[in-house]
């Protein structure tokens, strides 16, 4: 994130830097997406750390969560490599599914967006399942469980490719403002 941030800002000083190799938009995509991803992983990690303490038992489905951590890392690596070395496809659904969706903060290809939904689904199971298994909840856990609903639902706005830019940005703003900044 820091490296691509530095590269992106350096283009403003020297617009010929890496011209034809790494365009500004790809450097920016890497920068902002790694930002969102490490915040997301940090938030999830802190909850995984917190859950056993709060509910007095091991996290339900913890094995699945551990595997998905490595899957998540691998997926991020694949997405980043494709951004750097493939960069663009043609104007087809296939390009959106495998290369670049081209909507700000949610440029990751659709297959990765599906992966994020799966990971958040397992995360939801970890939280709710642990509360059920512990037969208790707390104020914080209750708020977190309610928060899981918009966390998953608002993220679904990352999927469609609406033709109308006005409508696209209308829904995109719910994703950015509420998902990134609230949930």
């Amino acid at each position, binding site marked *: 994130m820091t490296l691509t941030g530095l590269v992106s800002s350096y283009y403003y000083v020297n*617009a010929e830097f890496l011209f034809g190799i790494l365009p500004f938009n790809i450097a*920016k995509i890497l920068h902002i997406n790694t930002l969102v991803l490490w915040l997301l992983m940090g938030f999830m990690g802190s909850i995984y750390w917190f859950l056993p303490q709060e509910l007095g038992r091991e996290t339900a489905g913890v094995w699945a969560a551990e595997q998905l951590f490595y899957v998540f890392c691998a997926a991020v690596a694949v997405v980043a490599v494709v951004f750097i070395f493939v960069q*663009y496809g*043609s*104007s*087809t659904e296939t390009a959106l599914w495998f290369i670049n969706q081209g909507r*700000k903060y949610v440029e990751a290809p659709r297959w990765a967006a599906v992966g994020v939904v799966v990971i958040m689904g397992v995360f939801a199971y970890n939280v709710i399942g642990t509360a059920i298994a512990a037969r208790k909840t707390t104020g914080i856990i209750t708020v977190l469980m309610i928060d899981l609903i918009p966390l998953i639902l608002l993220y679904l706005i990352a999927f469609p*490719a*609406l033709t109308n830019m006005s409508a696209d940005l209308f829904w995109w703003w719910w994703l950015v403002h509420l998902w990134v900044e609230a949930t």
Partner: protein
Amino acid sequence: MSAVLIMLTIDSLAAITPGGSNVPPYTVINQHIDYKFVAERGIDVPVVGEAEPLFGRPLDSAAAAALIERGKMVIQSRACIDCHTFFGNGAYYAPDLTKAWLDPDWEGWQAVTGADTREGAMVRFLMDPEQYRTWTRTMPNLGIAEPEAQALVAYLKWMAAVDTNGFPPNFNRAEKK
């Protein structure tokens, strides 16, 4: 609160649906687009004029919608919004494209690219921007094929006809002084 948000959502979506109060139908690409100051609103608004088909070919609503849909796919597949802005949203490395169709510089580009029309110049530029270097920050070649460039130009023409409540302000003003 949720009720208010739902009502506002319904109202906003009606206004921004093609054919709604702020967003023209896709067939507007068959007509001349201008941007004129309206005293009652205190802002510039798009003005849709007489017939001026893109590439000399008038399109029915299905064909116009298909072309513009493809234009949006070009915009997403090349991540244009990560260098440019659309309606002011995006990245700030390259110019805002909301009214790019109305940029008076395209007349000069016709001479440079050897194109007969504004849309022709835009297509040639988009297909190989590195050949037509722009100021300090050159747009890279994004492998845009001719049908994709045409779809993209159609998209920009439609976008220029959207009533954005005066965004961008003072567009073309400096030229007129």
